[in-house]
């Protein structure tokens, strides 16, 4: 089972290796990991995508909480939330295919950020499903290079009743 976990940590040197070392040392899996400062510059947020059954996730959460540098651990599982990742993709685009590529870019509300005679570089944000669908559609044109960020997530604000 895949989980997205948000970890608030003290923004100090070595904290990233404490977290990643915990995962490698205990045989937990990291699919992606992003780190950035929060509103409070003394605190960073790490968003980690990991997999494991319930018992493993319970251990991951507890072990993270046990680290002295960790302030809060939150698992987004089973809670309405928004997930996003950012994709940069460079594809072959010649005179015959350009129009079709642009149509797909348009449909996905992606953006062409660099153009050369034989290639487009496109930027897309979205959840995993959207990013995967986008890659699938572009694959036939010839993907030259892909760079993507890890996932970030935020809970949805509860609606008033």
């Amino acid at each position, binding site marked *: 089972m895949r989980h997205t976990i948000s970890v608030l940590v003290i923004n100090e040197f070595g904290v990233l290796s404490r977290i990643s*070392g915990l995962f490698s040392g205990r045989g937990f899996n990291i699919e992606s990991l992003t780190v950035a400062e929060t509103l409070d510059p003394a605190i960073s947020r790490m968003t980690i995508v990991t997999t494991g059954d319930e018992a493993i996730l319970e251990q991951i959460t507890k072990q993270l*909480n*046990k680290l002295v*540098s960790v*302030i809060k651990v939150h698992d987004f599982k089973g809670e309405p939330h928004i997930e996003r990742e950012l994709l940069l993709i460079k594809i072959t685009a010649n005179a015959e295919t350009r129009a079709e590529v642009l149509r797909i870019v348009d449909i996905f509300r992606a953006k062409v950020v660099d153009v050369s005679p034989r290639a487009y570089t496109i930027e897309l944000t979205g959840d995993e499903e959207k990013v995967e669908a986008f890659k699938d559609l572009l694959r036939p044109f010839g993907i030259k290079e892909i760079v993507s960020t890890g996932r970030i997530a935020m809970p949805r604000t509860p609606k008033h009743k």
Partner: protein
Amino acid sequence: MTKKKGKMTGAEIFLECLAEEKVDTIFGFPGGAVLPIYDALYDAPIKHVLVRHEQGAVHAADGYARATGRPGVVLVTSGPGATNTVTGIATAYMDSIPMVVFTGQVPTALIGNDAFQEADIVGITRPCTKHNYLVKDIKDLTRVIKEAFYIASTGRPGPVLVDLPKDVLNATYEFSYPDKVELPSYHPTYKGNSRQIQKAIDIILKSKRPVVYAGGGVVLSDAAAQLKTFCEKLNLPTTNTLMGLGGFPGTHKLFMGMLGMHGTYAANMAVTNTDCLIAIGSRFDDRVTGKTEEFAQYAKIIHIDIDPTSISKNVKVDVPIVGDVCNVLKELIKLVPAAKGLKEYKSNTAEWHEQIDKWSTTHKLSYKDSPKGRLKPQYVVEQLYKITKGDAIITTEVGQNQMWAAQFFLYDKPRTYLTSGGLGTMGFGLPAAIGAQIAFPKKTVVDIAGDGSIQMNIQEIATAVQYKLPVKVVILNNIVLGMVRQWQEFFYDKRYSHTCVSVAPDYVKLADAYGAVGLATGKRDEVASVLKEAMKVKDRPVIMDFRVDPAENVYPMVPAGQPLNKMLLV
């Protein structure tokens, strides 16, 4: 409010901080990067014990901490001095021993430059410390030291390492020791959830076959008295883990002995058949559980531990109680008088007590002794128990010696059996005995050793001689690496690959060379007199070389991965 004392060097501030933390002893070894501290130590009131190897310093501080409950303090230099501490730190980490290790570091400007005697010790020790620090600015020094001691000794204790670059030690700054620690991310849970505690009592009173399985957490939490009261009030048969020995009186009628791989028949059978297992300050280690699927498989399991990660890690539990063992036991004790069904409980459990008594009497811990045959190691341990009347601090090395010391010496008080349980570090016992002897100069301190492991830190005999410590070393000399040999005999077709260590020093001459006392015998009827003679020595260490039967094995034994009731017996 903070105390102020004016400008000082980092090294002086360091010593002031130790004084604030009421540290009376440092175990250390000097070197280039910590020269500023050693200079300040030259006329400082604090006691410094000069070891012969940095690993020895850490085990000695560990022994001091285990014997007293106060954090052990280590001071070593950068590079190899620091890396030599790693085994000791990992040992303390596995057994949750409070300790603060200070390592020198090259000046901040040189960090990362592969400078002379530079090692990234903070990186190296990250997975084997509770927390660690590199102090880059003298402004942070007092705060970090305060936090280090606080983290090491609160919650589930553990080692904390503080790396001190030389320029920070030489810099000057206003000394002011903080009163409080402010760690937004560190809040151990001490008080158990009262509903869970009530639930635990309810389950115990409905049980017919209850068992208490108590571990090192009882010792760490200084809860031996509370555990005894709790078990007596509810008439609970009790077993200890290796780390828990002494946490419950070894001579108590409710005590079944140790459980696990080399546990007693009664303890292992009781845990296998219990319908209510009360795990207290223990962590379901694989050496305790054997095959986890069958461990206490008929039981509702109640687990009291201060560390949430210990709960349901290896074995799923029914009633987790996160909290300090001592606090939770006090709460449990309070609930007993008003508990429903106390009378029925007593009659419901009567049969269980009879069953356990039967197991205990039919399968006592034993060995095949023969007055004419070769000297048995168990006999030596029994004699030691008899002669000391159990009033001693025992440290052990690792292997057969450790198990015989756990089985044939009974520990009535906590902090009297000091052993490397989790990591299983050979070479632990002698330096740990030194640490314990420094903490308790008048006490009898004995390292029960094997001939294999004693040699791993034998250089510390010099330390014991230097400080006139009457540490007794009982070598159960079987000229083999006994525990490994035992596994080879049972599981590797008697192919004794590299377990014979017959090329060894003459320990009597060795003792003499160090300025210690050396005694030796291989005769059963001389054991008592050798031990008695050793006990008379009060001003230097004694090495006793007991030449015992190399073929002797530790029984019972649960082969790794087997359920606890599948014991190999004598």
